């Protein structure tokens, strides 16, 4: 069937997107076309070794030479973006930049020289992107989506662990165990290869002991490894599986490979396996991490997936340029928000009721607020989480909601998103935004408008859900000149709702310029 896999002949315009990853031992870029039919085709992949991590993990800051090299490479990348007229780009940086004290200088230099805005992302975002790519690529393969699965990536700076339960993200953690960091902190370079491997193993074992107490590793049935070093293990001792670009490596096979590799210096490994030095150098530390993880789980084998964080970035870009909601992302965000709500003992039935009503209103008011799918999601999350503050105290619980949310990690939302959600939740009752609210004023103007538009809706939704335990269904809306009429069919008694709306509808009238009316039937 593969015989004539010609490039599609239907000439509907495609969008070109690109993802750039400023990692700890390399800069990578992937350029792809998002086709209207829905799938994404990779045009080119780029990989250039720059050891940014070495500087950061040793001295806490990026060195001049590697910064210059990185800027030069990004300039080359920029050139390719122009050739393909890339319409949407996301450039992210991970631990090497994240942890560097001079990260801002570096990012500024990159921007000045190339016009590229490189975004430093949190480890949770890193794992989320990788995991979404793994799930997309593997589908239901190898029952990773059943039972407990661990997805692990040993990068240069850190090892990212994500646990899936029945296919949903249940927990994630980042360990400061990266192949480059390990080498730099233990400075094993002077040791012989075998002694150096012993030191590394010891260090990894210690670090892992803590992890075992936090993550239920012993319940893991499937172990998926991601990353260049894992792919190396797949090629060397793995068995390729189907067409999904997967390898399966047995525990014994991995042990053998680790034993074989730890006898050699990076130089020798490079020669033996035809690897560039930058890759040969990280091989043993990374393989040791995978080995240690595999033995900590119940899994008998390591599944190696070829995907990377960049594939996750592409997936998101594809959703973005097609103007679609990324269902996988939405699911994971909602899942994460609901876990958080449960953690703070929120009445989930009520919370969902509010969230769904808010979304209905949001959709109805589309022409009035002009916001998109991303903001719809933020509103939904705010609906789910608006009452978390009650966990602390019922007095001024909206304020507690604000800081609890603002300091939480919601999978799939970045810092700015989370800040908006926290504000929307904060304004679900009592005062509307005021100049004296410092956190609010600190937001950029566009974000403040978003908060206002979303909070105004959330307040109405909350008012409509006044009668606890009653599901709001079949909402209908009407617009009569300056009036926005909400019809709640079959509701016998709306006294509570009307009273609540009288208090909470103020912000709506302010923001949308319409008065609210509630009608039965």
């Amino acid at each position, binding site marked *: 069937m593969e015989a004539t896999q010609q490039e599609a002949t239907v000439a509907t315009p495609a969008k070109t997107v690109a993802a750039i990853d400023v990692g700890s031992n390399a800069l990578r870029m992937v350029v792809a076309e998002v086709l209207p039919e829905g799938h994404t*085709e990779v045009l080119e992949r780029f990989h250039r070794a720059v050891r940014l991590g070495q500087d950061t993990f040793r001295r806490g800051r990026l060195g001049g030479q590697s910064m210059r090299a990185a800027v030069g490479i990004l300039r080359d990348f920029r050139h390719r973006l122009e050739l393909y007229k890339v319409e949407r780009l996301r450039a992210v940086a991970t631990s090497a930049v994240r942890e560097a004290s001079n990260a801002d200088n570096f990012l500024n230099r990159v921007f000045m020289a190339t016009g590229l805005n490189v975004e430093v992302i949190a480890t949770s975002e890193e794992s989320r992107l990788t995991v979404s790519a793994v799930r997309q690529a593997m589908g239901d393969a190898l029952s990773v989506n059943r039972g407990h699965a661990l997805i692990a990536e040993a990068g240069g700076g850190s090892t990212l662990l994500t646990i899936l339960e029945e296919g949903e993200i249940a927990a994630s953690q980042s360990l400061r165990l990266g192949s480059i960091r390990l080498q730099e902190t233990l400075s094993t370079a002077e040791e012989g290869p075998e002694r150096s491997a012993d030191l590394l193993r010891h260090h990894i074992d210690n670090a892992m002991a803590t992890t075992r107490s936090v993550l239920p590793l012993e319940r893991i049935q499937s172990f998926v490894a991601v990353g260049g070093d894992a792919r190396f293990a797949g090629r060397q001792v793995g068995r390729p599986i189907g067409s999904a670009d997967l390898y399966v490596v047995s525990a014994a096979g991995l042990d053998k490979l680790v034993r074989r590799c730890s006898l050699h210096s990076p130089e020798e490994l490079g020669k033996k396996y035809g690897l560039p030095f930058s890759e040969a150098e990280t091989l043993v530390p990374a393989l040791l991490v995978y080995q240690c993880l595999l033995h900590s789980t119940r899994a008998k084998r390591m599944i190696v997936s070829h995907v990377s964080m960049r594939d996750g970035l592409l997936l998101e870009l594809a959703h973005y340029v097609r103007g679609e909601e990324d269902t996988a992302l939405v699911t994971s965000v909602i899942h994460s928000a609901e876990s958080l709500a449960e953690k703070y003992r929120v009445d989930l039935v009520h919370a969902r009721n509010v969230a769904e009503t808010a979304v209905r209103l949001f959709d109805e008011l589309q022409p009035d607020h002009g916001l998109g799918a991303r903001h719809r999601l933020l509103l939904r999350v705010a609906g789910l989480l608006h009452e978390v503050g009650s966990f602390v105290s019922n007095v001024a619980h909206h304020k507690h909601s604000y800081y609890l949310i603002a300091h939480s990690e919601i999978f799939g939302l970045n810092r700015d998103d989370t800040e908006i959600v926290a504000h929307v939740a904060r304004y679900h009752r009592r005062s509307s935004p005021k100049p004296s609210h410092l956190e609010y004023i600190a937001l950029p103007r566009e974000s403040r408008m978003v908060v206002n538009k979303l909070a105004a809706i959330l307040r109405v939704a909350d008012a409509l859900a006044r009668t606890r335990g009653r599901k709001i269904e079949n909402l209908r809306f009407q617009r009569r000149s300056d009036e926005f009429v909400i019809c709640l069919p079959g509701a016998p008694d709306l006294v509570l709702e009307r009273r609540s709306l009288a208090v909470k509808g103020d912000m709506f009238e302010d923001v949308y310029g319409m008065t609210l009316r509630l009608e039965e039937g």
Partner: protein
Amino acid sequence: MSKIDLKSPDLYINRELSWLEFNDRVMREGLSDDVPLLERLKFLAIVSSNLDEFFMIRVAGLMQQRSANVNRPDPSGLSPSEQLDAISRRTHRMVAEQTEGIRKLLDLLADKGIRVLELKELEPQQAKLVRQHFAREVLPVLTPLAAQDLDPCPLLPGLRLHLGLVIRSKRDKSAEEKVVVVPVPSQLSRFVAVPADEGLRLVRLESVIAAGAGQVFPGCEVLATAFFRITRDGNVEIQDDDASDLLHVVEEAVHTRRRRAAVRLEVSTGADSRILDWLTTTLQLNPEDVYHIDGILDAGAFWSIVNRPGYDALRLPDWPPQQPRELIGVEDLWQVLDERDVLLVHPYESFEPVVQMVERAAEDPSVLAIKQTLYRTSGDSPIVRALERAAENGKEVTVLVELKARFDEARNVTWARRLEDAGCHVIYGIVGFKTHAKALLVVRRESGRIRRYVHLATGNYNDRTARLYSDVGMMTSNREIAGDVAAVFNLLTGYSEAVGWSKLTVEPGRLKQKFIDLIDREIEVSTPDRPGLIMVKVNSLQDRDIIRALYRASQGGVKVMLNIRGICCLRPGVAGVSENIEVRSIVDRYLEHARIFYFRNGGHEEVYLSSADWMHRNLERRIEIIFPVTAPALRRRLIDMLKVYFADNVKARQLLPDGTYQKVPRKGTATRAQERFAKEAAEAVHAAQHTELRFQPLVSPKE
């Protein structure tokens, strides 16, 4: 069963001796009564130019090893000096046979009207004209060297014919005898045409000069003359640590090649001992490095007779390149490639579509970028001109020019600069590796979509050799292949390191492994009921690891059919090792150059094409491409071609266990692979034209 050591020297044929057998097969064509006379002359000329290159590179390399006391034996167990002895013996035998063959051939040509005459055979009128020619055209450009008087001796350039003379002053008979040298000017034709009533009458330039030598040295007496030709070490270690300066290094290298150590001396039989002694001493050559030739030196000069227009009766009938059968009636190449892959079989099918692909891309406003590797091409080639134009039209043009292509450096440097001037991004290869891959990539934005079109081939982008070499190319828009080819260029331009390949195998170190994996898989799937089958056509097989894998395949019951034009270090037909391996070689009018690899793979047949031979240097020190042909129709066509190569019983020879070759015995009808391919190409075009005629619309017969 005792285990046979597959490293045993008995199992390997020496590479140099195998090459000499190849040159012998070329010579057999020149000696064959079945071949038209001028074609025979051509083959005999090729024998000489082949030997020149062989001595400059291979023999010179072995001599360097010998003088550095490197005595490591080759896989066949021969030390450098043993190899040199064997080479000298074999070459002496070959040269004698070639010289004799030329003499007989010249007699036959004389009957057909082409006569190479000695001066004494000329009519007086003709002799007078020749003397005039000498005085007017030749004498002014002669630059005699008082060789013996100078210390150090002036450099006598390699591969040039020289006239050596012993002279003495006419007045003072007691004066010292001196050896002097007159280089035969290379800018003049080696054969001087003499007016005659009928046919072609030629005299050799060197004879004319020898006869007029007295005029070159006025007041001197010529006591003896001899013709000679020196071959020098042509190995140039290109130190490309600093690739930015590669252009400069190559310019230097071309210059210094002329002053390398001598490795061979060819001299006319009966040369005066004073000249001979002087030469061997100055050049520091052993007697076995001196070849006494009882005939014309430098048979390569016969090319000028071969290339003379006319005398078509003495040549093979023309097989003009045909429109490739898969492109007949095609107007829009891009559209065709959107739908299917296209196979091109040269030179039976024209190379023109490849040239047109670049030319069209250069003018096409939708084309964003063109990337191409150029290894051995000519400067005024239409492809180079199209690339220049494309750059001028604002397209991104990336050209990899391999400067390290031996002997072509000087030519490459000039047009590489021209491409740079036009605005192309020119890269001169990558440090430490020669780029031998042949790839062309066109990036096009078409109705908002990026489309990429690729041409991959076994032969170079050289429109001249594409008429003389048998090669195979494939055009495709397969996106995995296109992505890989884009990655090849990113690798070559330093835009990216290797990023993992979908369909192609590219990197040195992986190439060999790929072939060995394919061979090993064939062993694995082979069963006594369904034995594995490997059919391969390459130019050379020398890599020891590949040979060993093939021995294992034979031991595992896999049938291995090899069609190897040149060097083959594998020894077939050895009991317990290689009795399932058969090696054939075809030397015919076109130089066999395609590399095709077939693996039965338990019925899931796979066919690959490659720029790489099964030579150590190709697999370890070069950037090459191995690519699969996956379209069923194309794969079938290549398998059928391989079968025709193995069915050839006219030009094919079979390698015997002792390392010699023997004509394949003719059973049944005669099959000559090249002729068959030429006929098929012509028939395909004819059939298409015939079909078109039949479907012409009827014109209404009104008036």
